[in-house]
């Protein structure tokens, strides 16, 4: 029972439709790669996050069952690591680096400006669902401090105006 | 022998520690011969004396006036005793600290009145009374404290022991005589 065979029928556990099934493909592939062993949990959660954008509760249950990991353990791992999110992200994501070089270079001030200018703080999504703001511990781009990532694109030497401007554009208003 | 001068006060608390003090019962009469109460809810002095040997402070610091009081008391007391769990840990009064002051006031004044309340939480304001601190906190977070007497309330035996040691000119060691929540 431990190895072999496809995981339990996915669509039964996961809420809706074939779109979801397609998204599950990567998840299933990851689990199969590790023969559904429990230690694949973190890798699988990466896969879930990649294809769903966040860790959806039903998918977590599905993963728990497939890998035979207790539900609470799955939740514990999902909340222990900062890479994982239990909330759906906004349309766009903005990551501000708070590594030492970036902090010394003024990334704290950028976060302050975002709070004042756009009313968002780290870990939150704007009320219009357009932009999620995240803080990175270090992007490893210290030479470009302060650095940030806008929808996957690393940008260096940021300042508050630049960041506000980009976010304003995403949200459809001027700054 | 000169009497020890004593002040007692209660801040944000229930007065139970003072009651426990009275629970030393007949020893109160003995004590009256050796201790002079200069300031207390039990006597009529209106202002805190310039100096007392020992002050018992019951209660957490919950308002600006409490804060001012402990500063004065510290200033004018030889030995300051944090008297009971509220003074030592903020205890039950500290349970409000989980909520913002505005919420606590709103529950009591705006939300709990039965007729259609004329007051909403936005119009709530207070005057002529001391402002509330955001949290009720232990006395030693504001001033240095010499002796801690835990318990809710501290048992009368512990209080009696405190006095007998003080009268004997010793700094009492309260270890094992009482505990948090006793």
């Amino acid at each position, binding site marked *: 029972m431990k190895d072999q065979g496809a995981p339990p029928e996915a669509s039964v556990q996961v809420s809706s439709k074939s779109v979801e099934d397609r998204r599950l493909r990567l998840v299933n592939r990851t689990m199969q790669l590790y023969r559904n062993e429990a230690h694949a949990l973190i*890798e699988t959660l990466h896969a879930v996050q990649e294809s769903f954008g966040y860790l959806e509760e039903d998918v977590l249950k599905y993963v728990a069952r497939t890998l035979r990991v207790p539900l609470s353990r799955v939740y514990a791992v999902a909340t222990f690591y900062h890479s994982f999110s239990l909330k759906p992200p906004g349309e766009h994501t903005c990551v501000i680096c708070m*590594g*030492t*070089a*970036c902090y010394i270079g003024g990334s704290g001030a950028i976060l302050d400006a975002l709070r004042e200018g756009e009313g968002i703080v780290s870990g939150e999504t704007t009320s219009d669902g357009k932009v999620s703001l995240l803080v990175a511990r*270090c992007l490893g781009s210290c030479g470009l*401090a302060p650095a940030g990532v806008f929808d996957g*694109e*690393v940008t260096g030497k940021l300042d508050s105006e630049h960041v506000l401007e980009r976010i304003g554009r995403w949200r459809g208003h001027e700054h | 022998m000169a009497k020890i001068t004593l002040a007692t006060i209660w801040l944000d608390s229930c007065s139970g520690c003072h009651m426990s003090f009275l629970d030393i019962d007949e020893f109160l009469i003995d004590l009256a011969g050796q201790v002079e109460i200069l300031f207390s809810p039990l006597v009529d002095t209106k202002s805190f004396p310039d100096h007392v040997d020992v002050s018992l402070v019951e209660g957490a610091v919950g308002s600006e006036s409490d804060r001012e009081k402990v500063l004065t008391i510290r200033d004018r007391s030889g030995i300051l005793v944090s008297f009971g769990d509220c003074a030592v840990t903020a205890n039950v009064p500290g349970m409000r600290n989980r909520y913002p002051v505005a919420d606590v006031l709103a529950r009591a004044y705006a939300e709990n009145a039965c007729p259609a309340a004329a007051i909403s939480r936005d119009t709530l304001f207070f005057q002529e009374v001391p402002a509330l601190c955001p949290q009720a906190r232990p006395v030693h977070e504001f001033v240095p404290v010499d002796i801690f007497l835990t318990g809710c309330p501290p048992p009368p035996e512990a209080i009696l022991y405190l006095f007998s040691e003080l009268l004997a000119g010793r700094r009492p060691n309260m270890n094992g005589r009482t505990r948090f929540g006793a």
Partner: protein
Amino acid sequence: MNIEDLHQIARIEKSKQEGFQHQIHVCVAAGCLSCGSGQLKEALEKEIARRGLDTWCRVKGVGCLGLCTAGPLLSLETAGIFYQGVKVSDVSDILEALGGAPVERLICPVNSAFFRRQVRIVLENCGRIDPERIEEYMAESGYGGLALAVSQMSPTEVIEEVSRSGLRGRGGAGFPTGLKWTSVAKASGLTKFVICNADEGDPGAFMDRSVLESDPHRVIEGMAIAGYATGASQGYIYVRAEYPLAVKRVRLALFQAERMGVLGNNIFNTSFSFNIKVRLGAGAFVCGEETALIASIEGRMGRPRPRPPFPAEFGLWEHPTLINNVETFANVPPLIRKGGRWFAGLGTEKSKGTKVFALAGKIMNTGLIEVPMGTSLRDIVFDIGGGIPRGKEFKAVQTGGPSGGCIPGQFLDMPVDYDSLAKVGSIMGSGGMIVMDESSCMVDVARFFMEFCMSESCGKCAPCRVGTRQIYDILCRITGNLSGPDDLAMLEDLCDLMKSTSLCGLGQSAPNPVLTTLRYFRDDYLSHIHDKRCLAGACKAAREVA
């Protein structure tokens, strides 16, 4: 593959490269990529093809060229010319200047101390080879160390060589690598593991990222040698998910190495077999701690457990496990190729070899450097680093990340090695070096690091879980000018408690930034406490107290 095949591949690759008169190296490490080096490379390729120069001139994506401030960087390998801040619009000028006088306005002074003073072992291939082609690595003697080890040396001899080199772990604590390998080799058990810690967590450090992005095979080779020496047949690279490019290149490199047969079964036709898998970290600094890292590879939360037993005896899935970091493994191949004695000839008496540092902060030349151990801080900051920009005063250099300390000007002439750093209250750490000028408030810096440790504390042991929060609160009170007279004493008391009683290295070293700033920059604290004023003018008084 056998050793002859390896040489053959290297020869072919060499001669192929020599066929080009010009090789343009475009930096495609994350730093330069984010300044547009990807587009630049594309434009160069297109333009070369358009002009029909492609048999004569070749464009190559390479790893980090080091001087990240000046990106995008490119180098003309044969001419020894560096261009900095290159834009797509510069492409035709560059091509036209090939073979003639260089484009003056783009020239990056290669003679500057930044390049001159470096000694490159770990970074020897960085910026010179295409990290996505194993052949290029092989052309630079790549996998030669492994070949040598498995074919001509016994595992014990390999370990002896490593011990002879005096190499110490580059991950932070500086534990002698040979000793660590020995204990894993000696540990009983048929199954053993080798783990490469590539979860570079220090904010302000990016050496490991650069090495993995620029020269991933070097790490793979180092791990394979370690596997041979310790008797392990399975390796894991635990790499940060935040480094997508590094992950991609490592995966590609593993694929190539397996295909070529330098990984897998019967490597170089010997009985030695070794495989490597990639595991992604998920954003937890504490996973830099060995036992936490192991827990994470096992699919659990990265909470450290008390040691002993050490991973060398009781590691991944309870088997003896060797854990070294990226830079340590990267040192191994040349060390084996050239011998431990050669390596030991570099550096100081107790700290051998070179060290890669990530220079950042208030410094002219930010980027990656590699210098011999024992180079002075002054040389690094003012000579190689080019000093402090905008005429500001130097205030401190922070080494070792959140576990390190802030070193003041009075120690600038100190040689940088493990023991000297420890003497002043800091650590080597993984090699982050953040320079601060007079506009930094050291209380605020301490607060920054404590915030980091607080949110990275795993929460297992009480002193670290609550201690970091209490210390952070005090530092917030101080920077917010809300502190009381007892706060300094309480700060010192809590730091001492955490150092002495925390379960793992994170908690034990988390007070270091506070302790060093208290020691060397006490005035910054006192001014906040007594005068309610920030000496550096950096702290907003109204900063909220959490």
